[in-house]
């Protein structure tokens, strides 16, 4: 138990204030599928400890970008993907959380949460102890032995997030994790995620369709262009943290939202006109 608590402590330890060290750097990353150019020269840098949100019209190549960053897909030759400044195969180095929770119905909450840790070869008992200690933080205390089909949508998503956190990687990749939740649950989960993030300090790239969500969560919002996807706009969000829901109605928030909406709408129209949406 103490062992697990120590490890949890390590997980929870807030490092020094994030230096401007770059965690992930994409340079001129392109990807073509047959005749379709999905991504064209994407340049994107993410600093250590930074929370970057990414929005863009449907079919803009977000998933392609994500799969490349997760290491599931190769970028076309000519582009560079650097992790901690060095070119690397990213498979197994990024904690990736897909849109759907993808929990396994034959594993209970703890065993779903430790799936990634288990694949890494961490002893099951040790991983379970660690997960048990984290359960409270993820609002899952008392549900450790429940099966996914016994949980609400929000809880399932938190189990998936816990699995992602237990896969102890500096870079986390979250693909619309709250997309399927109702508005109230989603707002709660956003605040909860910020709280967890501020304590566990990971670098996060977060994909979303929801502009409010992008601004509310991010240190920086990145807008992707219509296909072929590239970075259209980057906007630093200097709203104070910790953020609370009241922020959503402030003039500063609305000004940023206006600016981003214009950019996203322009791109959506392009997609619409090309018949891809």
């Amino acid at each position: 138990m103490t062992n697990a608590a120590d490890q949890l402590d390590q997980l929870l330890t807030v490092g020094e204030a994030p230096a401007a060290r770059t965690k992930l750097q994409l340079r001129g990353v392109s990807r073509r599928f047959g005749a379709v150019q999905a991504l064209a020269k994407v340049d994107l840098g993410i600093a250590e400890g930074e929370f970057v949100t990414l929005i863009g019209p449907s079919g803009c190549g977000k998933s392609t970008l994500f799969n490349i960053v997760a290491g599931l897909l190769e970028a076309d030759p000519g582009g560079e993907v650097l992790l901690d400044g060095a070119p690397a195969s990213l498979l197994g180095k990024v904690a990736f959380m897909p849109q759907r929770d993808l929990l396994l119905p034959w594993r209970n909450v703890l065993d779903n949460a430790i799936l990634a840790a288990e694949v890494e070869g961490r002893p099951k008992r040790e991983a379970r102890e660690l997960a048990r200690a984290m359960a409270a933080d993820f609002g899952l205390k008392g549900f450790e032995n429940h099966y996914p089909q016994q949980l609400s949508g929000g809880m399932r998503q938190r189990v998936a997030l816990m699995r992602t956190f237990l896969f102890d990687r500096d870079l986390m990749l979250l693909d619309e994790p709250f997309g399927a939740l109702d508005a109230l649950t989603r707002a709660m989960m956003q605040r909860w995620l910020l709280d967890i993030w501020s304590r566990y300090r990971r670098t996060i790239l977060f994909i979303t369709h929801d502009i409010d969500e992008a601004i509310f969560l991010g240190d920086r919002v990145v807008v992707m262009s219509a296909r072929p996807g590239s970075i259209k706009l980057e906007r630093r969000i200097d709203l104070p943290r910790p953020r609370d829901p009241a922020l959503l109605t402030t003039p500063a928030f609305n000004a940023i939202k206006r600016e981003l909406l214009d950019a996203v709408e322009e791109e959506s129209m392009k997609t619409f006109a090309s018949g891809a949406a």
Partner: protein
Amino acid sequence: MRWLRASGLAALARAALPLLLLAALWEAAVALLHISPFYLPPLRQVLGAMLALWPAYQEAFLVTLGEAVVGFLAGALVGIASACAFHHARWLRDMLFPLFVASQTVPVIAFGAIVVLWFGNTLLAKAAIAFYLTFFPVTVNALAGIEAVDPRQVALLRSFGASRRDIWWKLLLPSALPRIFTALRLSAGLALAGAIVGEWFGASIGVGAMLLAALFNEQVVAMWAAILAAAGVGGTIFAAVALLEGRLVFWRDEL
């Protein structure tokens, strides 16, 4: 009827109740409708005949059960292994799957004659026929179960750095279990049919042999007794599969 849903004992009662009703219906129909014993002898008489020759029926039951179970297990193993191989290597599937299908177009009777020629009157011969009937549905269903796995699930595991082995054991096989069990339940009856057909080519002991002997001697009561014994064999295999399924695929109902 809540008491019927309560416990293990209730589950037993739930299974036994329809059987008892059927037995009562049988007795009543024969008595009330004056059915000639040639068409349907009273159940009492059938059970009486079984009790009178209990050791013989017990032996036949065990022999046929053994043949069916060996063939069934071999069919299940080969079916699951083939499905894995076919999923793993597309070319293997393109090459062998048509052969699998073709094998099933040969009537089991024709195939049975050949097998008995090869193996003689051994347990192996009957098990081979039971195997022949079971491996195909298991292959098809296991393959369907494996192929139905969400590719995003596979991608997620890969992103954790999972090896092929991890993906098989932690994802593909457990995901395919519900379908595999559907096939196994189906195969329980097929394995029995295979064993019985195998016994028809000259076996002297077994439920199938009993059935054939009764048929040739026009012993209607003995025929019905053999049918009940066969139902006992099938029911035993089926119950074992269902029990195992309940343990292994506990999440199925909730999907």
